């Protein structure tokens, strides 16, 4: 193990390390902690310029209550759910199939198709912006959740294919050969042999894509406009325009907008990190 484990060091270093951890963590998260503090301060604190002093009273319920009851926030959150969940399902389903095709079969064009998916996944969004917006307008899907979902599914398929194909390639190929010898059709091999083994990959991709899409801002402002279809990342900016300079409310709103992927991360941590660090170890 590197660096030397602290339990092998003197007690001074051991306890020093344990004491240092929370201090460093607080410094690391300070900007966020500041916002969390703002979000439970009452309006009067800001009026009297008491920014960092002890809050006059705790306004947790008032602030968060207003975010949920007095603004469009719940609608934006719901929009985010209706954009994110179908995208996750669509991209994972499509990439299970493309990953299977590129990971199991060895055909000449395979590697080039695979590279096309990988390259497409890295292009700057701006090179797609004008044509995709045009395409969405032509299909009558501008400013709809469906239009946004279709694009996200297509784009995420690139990354998901990279992920799935590498995962499937590492599966024991002998199992598939054995099934073929038994005369099992290719479609049944996909469904009954390979798919059950892909569960960890599916879980990892699902949480990753959930976070990516929930946090998307660029496409949200390119393809949607109002509270009917905009996700919460775009909604928070309108929310802030509505409550300009009301820092306690803007802070509470930001925390609400950030929370779902955070909860997802803590609930599915193992899968999330497995997905994110794919390829970091040989």
């Amino acid at each position: 193990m590197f660096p030397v484990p602290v339990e092998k060091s003197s007690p001074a270093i051991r306890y020093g390390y344990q004491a240092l951890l929370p201090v460093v963590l607080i410094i690391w998260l300070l900007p966020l902690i500041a916002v969390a503090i703002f979000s439970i301060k009452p309006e009067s604190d800001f009026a009297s310029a008491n920014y960092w002093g002890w809050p006059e009273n705790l306004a947790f319920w008032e602030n968060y209550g207003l975010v949920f009851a007095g603004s469009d926030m719940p609608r934006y959150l719901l929009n985010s759910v209706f954009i994110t969940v179908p995208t996750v399902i669509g991209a994972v389903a499509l990439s299970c199939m493309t990953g299977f095709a590129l990971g199991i079969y060895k055909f000449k064009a395979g590697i080039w198709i695979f590279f096309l998916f990988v390259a497409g996944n890295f292009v700057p969004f701006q090179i797609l912006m004008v044509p995709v917006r045009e395409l969405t307008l032509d299909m009558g899907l501008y400013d709809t959740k469906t239009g946004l979902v279709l694009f996200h599914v297509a784009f995420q398929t690139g990354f998901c294919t990279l992920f799935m194909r590498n995962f499937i390639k590492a599966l024991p190929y002998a199992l598939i050969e054995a099934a073929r010898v038994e005369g099992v059709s290719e479609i049944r091999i996909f469904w009954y042999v390979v798919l059950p083994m892909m569960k960890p990959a599916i879980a990892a991709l699902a949480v990753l894509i959930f976070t990516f899409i929930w946090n998307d801002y660029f496409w949200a402002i390119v393809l949607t406009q109002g509270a009917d279809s905009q996700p919460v990342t775009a909604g928070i900016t309108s929310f802030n325009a509505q409550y300009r300079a009301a820092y306690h409310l803007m802070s509470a709103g930001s925390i609400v907008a950030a929370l779902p992927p955070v909860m997802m991360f803590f609930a599915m941590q193992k899968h999330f990190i497995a997905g994110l660090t794919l390829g970091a170890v040989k």
Partner: protein
Amino acid sequence: MADAALPLAQGAQPPRGWWKRNQQTLAPWLFLAPGAAFFLLYVIFPIFQSFQVSFYEWDGLGEAEYVGLRNYDELWYDDAFYTSLKNNVIWLVLYLAAIPAGLFIALFLNQKVFAIRLYKSLFFFPFVISQVVVALVFSWFYDPTFGLFNEFIGLFGLGPIAVLGDERYVTVGIIMAGLWPQTAYCMILYLTGLNAVDPEQIEAGRLDGAKGWRMLWYVVLPQLKPATFIAFVVTIIGALRSFDLISVMTNGGPFGESRVLAFYMFEVALSEYGFRMGYGAAIAVILFMIMMIYIAFFLWKMYRDEREG
């Protein structure tokens, strides 16, 4: 090897029907079809369409007028374009600091003590939050009247500095905000990499008297190469994709000094300054070309690994 269908096992039914005989050549195409169709329609074709649009003057509504290379010619004399390009270079260079910073935090956290897993998760936290929220958090952090940043430099008798309102500091200020989640990402890559470092090599190094920096440089870092490679790729892509932070924190200001190509393109094509699709597409093409250098490098490396593996 799977090009030719596997010979059927003895005793199995002889193949009947066209599908049964050809399914191994057809199956990959069938499985690819839906995903590939989507990807072609929404990603591959639009790249070429953008190239095409960049030769037109078009407001997104009326007739598009073919203008040849005029958009590129205009870019050549556009100061805002050079400001954006310059800022892109600054982003690329400074953003790379996320890699050593991530490694440093990973080394700090690579211990087995009480609650260390929770600490690792909490350090990773900034990466999970949306960039829009990171942007808001940091615009308040930098706020000249109540931001913690100015409270802090005030302790040394400095400031207050309106970081986001000052053209000298604005780009660096935004990059610092971007480094926060990016460092967390690099940290998690290195933590995973450190987990897989071969303990025997470390022991061997120790016996040879390697310690501290020398151990890190000669024994540990070579083993972290895959993690470093991924960290490089995601950091460079992240730097060139920077849009959310700029859009929310400064909207390109003050006086357009914090623009990067990705943001300037959006501004030209879709903001209140006008709908110049062709000009925007030309900027996107330049950005795409820059990105293509890295994409080609990445693909080349993947191709080499494929042939070895």
